[in-house]
């Protein structure tokens, strides 16, 4: 599903150039659950942003479903993103001014789904995430765990082929963290590919494969299942 070869990304300031990704290569197959680990600043999040088509690499190749997407313009990236990728962030990133229902509904609006169908699908996913009773609440009225459930619901409501999770349990206590990981496992078992960036060895163990990075490069790769 994902094939990256010699991927490069640099950050430049007025005086220095920092290499975030240094000729990184690996593949992720459809239905895999991959965890990416490494110390802060090793390029994990940069990689996730490129995989999520939020950012563009400076060099190398990035094939998504066999199609070369490196160098796509913003419009094409956005189009591909909204139909194929769901995001789960450490800090949940819900829109404070929208209710639970409206937050989850948002991706469907952008993909042009009709209101009746939207309602059905949002309710389905809220039921699945066991957050239906909070549908009319605003994010700040929810606990961290509940907010992350909503974020996961929003990530999956469009049935994306790929979910990118950036430290999804980083802001949660262990009980809520485990619940979120269970949700991700369920999604993965249902066929969704998951790439998760994490610092937590505990969370990484839920995945099929752990890629460890340092200084923008892959250092090890462990297959767990």
């Amino acid at each position, binding site marked *: 599903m994902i094939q990256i070869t010699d991927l490069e990304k640099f950050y430049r300031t007025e005086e220095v150039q920092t290499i975030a990704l240094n000729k990184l290569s690996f593949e992720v197959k459809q239905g895999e659950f991959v965890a990416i680990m490494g110390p802060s600043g090793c390029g994990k999040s940069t990689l996730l942003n490129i995989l999520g088509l939020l950012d563009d690499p400076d060099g190398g190749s990035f094939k998504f479903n066999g199609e070369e997407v490196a160098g796509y313009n913003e419009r094409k990236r956005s189009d591909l*993103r909204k139909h194929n990728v769901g995001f789960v962030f450490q800090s949940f990133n819900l829109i404070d001014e929208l209710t639970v229902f409206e937050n989850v509904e948002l*991706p469907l609006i952008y993909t042009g789904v009709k209101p009746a169908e939207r309602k059905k699908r949002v309710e389905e996913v809220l039921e699945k995430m066991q957050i239906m009773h909070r549908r009319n609440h605003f994010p700040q009225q929810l606990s961290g765990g509940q907010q992350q459930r909503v974020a996961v619901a929003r990530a999956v409501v469009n049935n994306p082929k790929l979910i990118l999770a950036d430290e999804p349990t980083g802001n949660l206590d262990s009980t809520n963290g485990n619940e979120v990981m269970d949700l991700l496992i369920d999604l993965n078992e249902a066929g969704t590919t998951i790439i998760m960036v994490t610092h937590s060895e505990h969370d990484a163990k839920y995945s099929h494969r752990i890629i460890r990075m340092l200084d923008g490069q892959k250092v090890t790769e462990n297959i767990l299942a």
Partner: protein
Amino acid sequence: MLKNYFKIALRNLLKNKVYSFINISGLAIGMAATMLIGLWVADELTGNSYYKNRDTIAQIYQHQTNNGEVGTGPAIPRPLEFALRDKHGDNFKHIVMSSWNQPRYLQHGDKNINFQGNFMQEAAPEMLNLDILYGEKNGLKEKNSIMLAESTAKALFGEINVIGKIVKENNSTDLKVTAVYKDIPDNNAFYDLRYIIPWKFYVTHQEWIERSKDYWDNNSFQLFVQINDNTTMEAVSEKIEKVKQIGDPDMVQYNARMFLHPMNRWHLYSDFENGINVGGRIENVWLFGIIGFFILLLACINFVNLSTARSEKRATEVGIRKSIGSQRGQLIFQFLTESFLVVLFAFVIAIGIVLICLNGFNNLADKAIVFPWTNAWYWFASLVFILITALLSGSYPALYLSSFNPVAVLKGTFKAGRFSSLPRKILVVSQFTISAALIIGTMVVMNQIQFSKDRPTGYDKEGLIQIPVMSAEFMGKRDVMRNQFLSSGGAVDFTTASSPATSVWSNRSGYTWEDKQPGFQEDLAYTNVHYDFVKTFGLKLIEGRDFTREFASDSNAVILNKTAVEYMNLKDPIGKYIRDSDTEDPNEPLKIVGVVEDMLVQSPYEPVKQAMYVFDQYENVAFWNLRLNPTKSVSENLNLIENVFKKNFPNTPWDYQFVDEEYGKKFKSEERLASLAKIFTALAIFISCLGLFGLASFVAEQRTKEIGVRKVLGASISQLWLLLSKDFLTLVVISLVVASPIAYYLMSQWLQKFTYRTNVGWSVFAIACLGALLITIITVSFQAIKAAIANPVKSLRTE
């Protein structure tokens, strides 16, 4: 999608009440001001739209050259009518002679009311397409008839179907009502035409008018025409240009040129300078149009500044939306939708403000504007106005906010760049530049008015009244009334004049005198006055004496003003003679008996014109002038004078004018301009300060932690106040530096139109600069001090 945008916009508005209030109220005030100005401009631009024939109606004007100076005006001589009918009649549908609009007493039963109106020829109702309610359009056919405006009929009779009823004019002649027409709306020419009496009546009514039919130099009338459809104003103007010179070869030396001044240009383009139409009220239309636009711009700048300043708060939303598939165009549309919503709210409030203020505004602007609820064009224009305002205020924030990089935002590393506040600073500078320029401009206008008001008038206006006595009933009563007024004790001096004390109704030429330069074309302001003229008016005699009964020869005497002596180049004028080449008896020249200090009667902004005050031997009287008794109170004097008047004219309403009040009316137009400018300047400052207040509170909020740290490290409240305020003060200082030369240049240009004018002195700039700085300090300090006195522990904890 749209619903989602509206929802989030509404929730954002409710969540940030202070910002919403500043944005919406600022925009509402700005929009209300712009709407009022818009209504005013529309009213000005649609002047004369009542007249269906306005494209073909014109007034005949003439240029006349005196000593190289071209004067232009609508006053024309009677023979012009005959020449146009005889020689050029095929160019016109209608030719209508008219008197000037003048007050007249109309009486029915016990009602005797003063109305403004004209004497006009038969075709007037047809040409003006008057809306006849009762009677016939040809109601001016019979000499002793009268057409009444609906309001006049109502006031006199209490009803409007009054055809055939009798109205007595000026207590003398009975006139039969032949038609009642609908009142002409306010922003149209002839709006004060409350009656029309046939021209035939006018001509036979007073001897001088009858006699004037042969005099090409008696420019005492008006002439309106409607041209034929197959010709143009320019073509007809060209044809009639020399008609006066042909009629009277004497006019060749004055290069008298006739032309048509089209009705479409009457209202806005009525000023002529040296023979060229240089505009008129259109300047005010532009001026207020620009002010309106600027006020709206100021309010839009607030919106832009507050939206972009608070961008970090919206950044996360932008990042999330982008990450889940929103394209930049969609985000731009979303933010524009938000600004549209804000503008829509502001518009609704603005309409409320306009409705509340419309009456006051009408009083101030001397208008009768009605809110155009049922005018589809108005609502269409409003929609365009809303969209333009939304685009003006929403475009930059939409482009700015939608440009955020989702990666940086979602990572939490987003910080507005070092130069991100630069556009905001530029906009604040623009705002205060506009406000400061308006402050300076308004002050210069006020200074100019005060400067002109302080100008010596050359006579004593206080305690001087004038009684209009233009109807026949007053003829021959001068001496009797004088004696009665003086013996009543209400007045100490009495004279008469053929013009009001604050105007000159007649200008004359055709005189000769000793030492007159060959070819010199004089143009003298001419007023007939009577005994005790100098004394009654409180004029200062430079040499010679007043008209007095002790000299029988005064029946052929004249007093000149100082400017006339210089103008005519008279050395030792007293005792010299001025000969009128038009008088029937050229052997009776006018003897100069006195020279007085210049008496300011015309524009207070122009030099005093050369004037001659000729002793009135034929009772050419328009006003009785009385100097009130200084030993009694004004009301006491007026009572005594009124009693004398009523005793002699029991059926005539008692009417008088204070000369100082009449003089004060000369400043009305400029004072109106100043009042409007003051209000709009105050609004501009208020809106700018509102924005500054919002920005100050934003900066204080943004720098909470810094303030806390500084305070913990020992910063005093005044140091913190300075820290937070100095950026804004710097911006305002820059604005003042930019605004001052601009305002200086513009106001110097504006002052050029007044010959008698003040300077744009440094004090104006000093006051404006100090004022602007003071306002800024007050506005900014509230937030700065609030932040500075906050408990640092609390502010550090908020981080």
